[in-house]
C-alpha cells in the first residue's frame, strides 16, 4: 500500500501557497518604454519559470513527506491457519443460483484470511484439487472465479473422495491449525472412497472439517455431515438462504482467527529519492534558464 511516512509535511503546500502571495521576491524595478511588446515575448518564459518553480516545490515537499510502500511480512508461517475449501460443483448446485451465491461468499471469506494458506478443491462425479495450499490468494480467487458447474461432471457427488483428497493436501503441513470447509447440497453417491477412510485421513492429519449443507434438507444427509464434523472436532452448519450461508462463513472466520500480530512486520520501501531526483533535475533546468551568465556568453 502506498502512503507517506510523514504526511503532515504535505501541509507545507499551504505554506508555499501563502508564501507565493505574501512573500514575493523583491526585484529591482525600472521604467521601461514599450513594455507591451516585451510582455508578449516574456509570457511563455514566465509561464515556464513559474511552472518549474511549482514543480520543484511540489516534488521537494513530496520527497520530504517520504512516500513509502508498506508490505506485511509474516515471519512464522506455522502460526497461521491452513484452510482447504471444498466446494460441491455438481449439477444440483445450479438450482436457485446456489453456486454463484456460494462462490461470492467464499470469495469474500478468502479475502478476509490475510495470513493463512488456502487450498481449493471441487467435486461432483469425481474430486480434484484446483489449487494446493498456497499463500497466493490472488490465484485462489482467480481459480474460484473461473470454476463453473460441470468442471468435475454433473450427475454424482463424490463427497467422501473430496474429503479424502483434500486431507492429503495437509500431508507435509507444518501449521498447527488445519481446517477444511466442505460445502455440499447433496448426498455422497459414489463408492470410490469409504466414509471412514476419509474421516481417518482427516483425523490423522489433524484437520478440523467444518461441514456446510445448503438447500433443501431432504437433499443432503445431515447426519453424515454432522458425523464428519464431530469426528474431526469441528461443527456442522445447515443453511437455506444466502444470508445464512454468509453467517456460517463469518462464524467459521471468527472461530478460526489467526494469531498473526506477533509474527509479522511491515516492510517499508522508500521512494523519496524519485521525487528528489526529479526536483534536482528541474532545479538544474531552472538555474540554467535563469542564470544569465551562461546565456550571455
Amino acid at each position, binding site marked *: 500500500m502506498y502512503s507517506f511516512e510523514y504526511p503532515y509535511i504535505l501541509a507545507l503546500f499551504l505554506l508555499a501557497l501563502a508564501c507565493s502571495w505574501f512573500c514575493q521576491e523583491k*526585484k*529591482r*524595478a*525600472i*521604467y*521601461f*518604454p*514599450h*513594455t*507591451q*511588446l*516585451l*510582455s508578449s*515575448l*516574456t509570457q511563455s*518564459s*514566465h509561464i515556464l*519559470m513559474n511552472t518549474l518553480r511549482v514543480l520543484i516545490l511540489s516534488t521537494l515537499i513530496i520527497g520530504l513527506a517520504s512516500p513509502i510502500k508498506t508490505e506485511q511480512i509474516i515471519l512464522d508461517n506455522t502460526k497461521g491457519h491452513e484452510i482447504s475449501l471444498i466446494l460441491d460443483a455438481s449439477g444440483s448446485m445450479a438450482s436457485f443460483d446456489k453456486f454463484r451465491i456460494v462462490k461470492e461468499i467464499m470469495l469474500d471469506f478468502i479475502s478476509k484470511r490475510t495470513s493463512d494458506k488456502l487450498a481449493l478443491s471441487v467435486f461432483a462425479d469425481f474430486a480434484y484439487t484446483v489449487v494446493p495450499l498456497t499463500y497466493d490468494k490472488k490465484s485462489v480467487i482467480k481459480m474460484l472465479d473461473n470454476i463453473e458447474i460441470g468442471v468435475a461432471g454433473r450427475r454424482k457427488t463424490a463427497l467422501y473422495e473430496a474429503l479424502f483428497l483434500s486431507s492429503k493436501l495437509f500431508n507435509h503441513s507444518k501449521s498447527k491449525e488445519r481446517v477444511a470447509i466442505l460445502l455440499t447440497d447433496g448426498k455422497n453417491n459414489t463408492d470410490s472412497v469409504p466414509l471412514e477412510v476419509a474421516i481417518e485421513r482427516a483425523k490423522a492429519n489433524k484437520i478440523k472439517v467444518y461441514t456446510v449443507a445448503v438447500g433443501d434438507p431432504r437433499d443432503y444427509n445431515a447426519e453424515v455431515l454432522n458425523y464428519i464434523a464431530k469426528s474431526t472436532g469441528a461443527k456442522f452448519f445447515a443453511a437455506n438462504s444466502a444470508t445464512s450461508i454468509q453467517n456460517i462463513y463469518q462464524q467459521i472466520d471468527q472461530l478460526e482467527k489467526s494469531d498473526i500480530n506477533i509474527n509479522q512486520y511491515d516492510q517499508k520501501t522508500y521512494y523519496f529519492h524519485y521525487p528528489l531526483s526529479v526536483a534536482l533535475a528541474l532545479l538544474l533546468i531552472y538555474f540554467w*534558464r*535563469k542564470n*544569465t*551568465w551562461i*546565456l*550571455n556568453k
Partner: protein
Amino acid sequence: MMLAQEILLRAKKQVFTNKSAGELSKIRGEGLDFCEIRPYEFGDDIRKINFSASGKTGELQTNIFNENKQINVVICIMLSSSLHFGSQCLKSETIAQIIALLSCSSIKQHNQTQLVFFAKNKQKLFQLNNTGDVLRAIEAMLSWDLLNTKSDFQALNQHLLQSKKSLTFIVGDFYHNDDYSLMAHKNEINALVVRDKLEETPNFSLELDLVNPENNSTIQANMDKRLALKYYKKLKTQDDQLFSHFAKHGINSGKLYTDEDAFSKLSQILRQ
C-alpha cells in the same frame, strides 16, 4: 542632467558657427527659384504662363518656382511617458537638444518658427522669435512631467492639417503605428525618431520588474541576451514598417540615439 541654458549655448555655438548654405525649401510656391515647366491647370497664375514653351508645344505651359520666401517651420514634439528613459542621457534631454538646434537654425534663417508639444489632453504652443523664447521652450521640455503622459496623434494630425503649409519636424520615439499620409500630403515632413540603444537591445543581464511609465503596470522579465535579441528583432520589424510608411509618403526620416551628437546626426538626416 543638462540645464536648459547649457543646451541652448551648445546649440547656438553649433548652429551659428556652422557655415552652411542658405537652406531652400522644397515647397513649391511664390519665389524666384525656378523648379520646372508643366502644362497649365485651372487655377494657375496666368502671369506664370511660359509663352515660349507654350508656342513650342502648342498648348499652354506654366513655370513652377520653389518657394524661397520666409517659410513656416513647425517643430512638433510627440510627448509620451516612454521618453522618460535613457542610458547616457534621457530621451527627453536629447529632444531638448533637437529643439534647441532646430529653433536656432530656423531663427538664424529668419523663418517663422513654431514649437508645439502634443500630449493627451494637453497642448503647449511656443512662437520662437528669439533665443529667449527658445530657452523657455527648452525649459518647458525639461520640466515636463512625462510620467503618465500619453502621446496624442490625433491632435498632431489636426494641427498640421489646419495650419498653413509648413516645413515640419515631428520628434518622438514613434512606438505607435500611426498614419502620417494626410499631413505629409500638405506639409514637408521630417520625422526624427529618438531612441536609446539600451531600450532597443535591453540586455541588463538581470531579472527585473519593468514598469510601464504610462500606466504603472509591471511585468517581470529575465533580461538576458537572448530575450534582448528577440526584442530587438521584433522592434526592428515594427521600425522597418514605420520607415517604409515614411518613405512611401515622402517623409524624410532618421533615427537619433541618445549617445550620439545631436547636431551632426541631425545634419546627416536633414541632408538626405
